[in-house]
């Protein structure tokens, strides 16, 4: 059904369709916002959902595609958040710079935040050469805690009191732009020789090594890219909330992203999007339950894992997030079914 559509679609439409869709989505949302059908509350939940999508997708690169086990992802986020906030509030005082310069400063901040996180990501990648599985997980957990403990002690950036007065630059446009851009870049990456190297390491590290894949290099690269994205996401988070403090980026937050990732379906970008968005919205939807809210949230989470243990979107991708192979076969790269021939 869908494939025939895709075949008959005009190639230009096929290429720019998703982009067009995004623009239409953005315009519709903004119109609804203007009409006040979508109020500030929904807008804000959407902003957080966007940040969470970035975080989950980047965690997916490490855990889902490269098969490493990182449980301290919020640590990278905090580095990015602080890095970006320092640029926009301390290096360039946001209220004293002309309006035209604000956006470049904001983007510079995000870039710096991302780079700081990526550098540390590379450092964390190094133990991953030696440590496997749970042992690596513990190192990432410890890393997250160390970052948190150190941020509390640096007084110029507020210490335990946190940083206040971060300008509110990250609006829906920027969040959406970064989500779309990141998903596009990640998709491209995964369907390239780099992505194949990551998946090879995940599926069988020894064989990957024997096939000439420098596992060390690719593992560090995976950590680095994921940390960069997490850093940018942290920067956006800081500029949505306009206040950050070290304890927001603790283990609980890292665990949240793990939940989003695996409930959505690891190894699938679509899963990351769906998991992050739905699970960001769910606790808000359950507000009418008052004190019993998180009890029901927990039950729903357990039920999802029991009944769809591969995640909501396990192992599948929507058409925009996968790339079809030349023209010979119209099949998903990591799909489960082939015309007529089903899974054995």
């Amino acid at each position: 059904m869908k494939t025939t559509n895709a075949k008959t679609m005009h190639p230009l439409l096929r290429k720019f369709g998703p982009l067009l869709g995004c623009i239409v989505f953005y315009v519709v949302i903004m119109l609804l916002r203007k009409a006040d059908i979508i109020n500030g509350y929904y807008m804000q939940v959407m902003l957080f959902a966007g940040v969470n999508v970035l975080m989950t997708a980047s965690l997916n690169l490490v855990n889902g595609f490269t098969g490493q086990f990182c449980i301290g992802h919020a640590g990278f986020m905090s580095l990015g958040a602080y890095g970006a906030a320092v640029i926009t509030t301390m290096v360039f005082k946001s209220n004293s710079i002309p309006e035209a310069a604000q956006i470049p400063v904001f983007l510079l901040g995000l870039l710096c935040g991302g780079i700081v996180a990526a550098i540390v990501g590379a450092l964390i990648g190094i133990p991953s050469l030696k440590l496997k599985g749970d042992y690596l997980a513990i190192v990432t957990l410890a890393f997250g805690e160390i970052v948190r403990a150190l941020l509390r002690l640096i007084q110029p950036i507020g210490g335990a009191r946190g940083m206040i007065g971060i300008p509110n630059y990250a609006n829906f446009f920027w969040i959406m732009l970064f989500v779309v851009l990141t998903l596009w870049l990640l998709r491209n990456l995964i369907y390239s020789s780099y992505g194949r190297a990551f998946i090879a390491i995940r599926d069988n590290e020894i064989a990957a090594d024997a096939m000439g894949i420098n596992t060390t290099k690719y593992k560090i690269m995976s950590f680095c890219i994921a940390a960069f994205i997490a850093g940018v996401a942290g920067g956006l988070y800081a500029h949505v909330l306009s206040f950050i403090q070290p304890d927001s980026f603790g283990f609980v937050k890292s665990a949240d992203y793990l939940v989003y990732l695996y409930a959505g379906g690891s190894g699938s970008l679509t899963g990351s999007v769906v998991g992050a968005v739905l699970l960001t919205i769910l606790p808000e939807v359950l507000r009418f339950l008052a004190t019993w809210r998180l009890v029901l949230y927990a039950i729903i989470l357990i039920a999802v894992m029991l009944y769809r243990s591969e995640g909501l979107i396990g192992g599948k991708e929507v058409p925009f997030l996968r790339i079809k192979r030349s023209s010979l076969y119209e099949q998903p790269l990591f799909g489960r079914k082939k015309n007529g021939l089903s899974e054995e």
Partner: protein
Amino acid sequence: MATILQYLVYGLQLGSVYALLALGYTMVYGIVGMINTAHGDFLMIGALGTYFIAKLFDSMSIDGTYPMLAVGCIILIATVMTGGIAVGVEAIAYRPLRNKPRMIALITAVGVSMFLTNFPRALPFIGPNPRPFPTLFTPKTFNVLGASITSTQIIMIVLAAVTMLALDRLVAKTKIGAQMRAVSMDKDAASLMGINIDKVISITFFIGGALAAVSGICYASVYPQVEVYMGSWLGNMSFVSAVLGGIGDIRGAMLGGFILGIAQIFATAINSTFGYAVGFIILIVILLVKPAGIMGKVTIEKV
């Protein structure tokens, strides 16, 4: 010298809590192969349960302390109850996922943990308030080379060691231990050998839950405050201990717990500002030197 000895006592005290909890953690990991992030919450249930059972026994309490028999009953009931809850959790939430990737069970365990803390928190008669833990034993204080050590501390440290030995023997020598080892190596093959896997895993969870309850009682005896979130971070620390010792290894779990406890205390003693971070740095360094934990062997995958 006396101060260092005193710090060592504190380190052993904290370490024995980690160790007792890590023993159950590592056992469940070794036999079922899952990271049960809800393990720390079993500790909370054990301690909170003890509090409420002790309330029921309150008429027997003289001067705020209970006669030995009552103490035995309280501990027994709390331990069995927690073990039972652990078995129930396994049957409902973990069993259906036994053959799924282990990350799936991990996420389910996060959900279970969330449920176990939030459910009592939402119950009106429990709620989020911290409560004073009843004095089950009146501690005697001894003076050893200038450092003071209480009977409770000695009991805890000894208990951790004895439990470790008992578990080690249980797994190595008894029939159920042999079955556990068989299940841990190959569930399908064990099943073909006529081993009732469900039963073995239930027993494992029972032991794990009961041990968590015991460590909860120990923890609350030296830090006498119980509340619903008390187990969350302890659970993580016991996971860290278990991994540090070589996850799945019973002796390693105890060693890991004590090392972590002592490392944290001494790091804090040297500089309390950085103590928290330094504790974790020590952990990373140990793992880089011993990539499979202290007792764990690096398994070379057969090619």
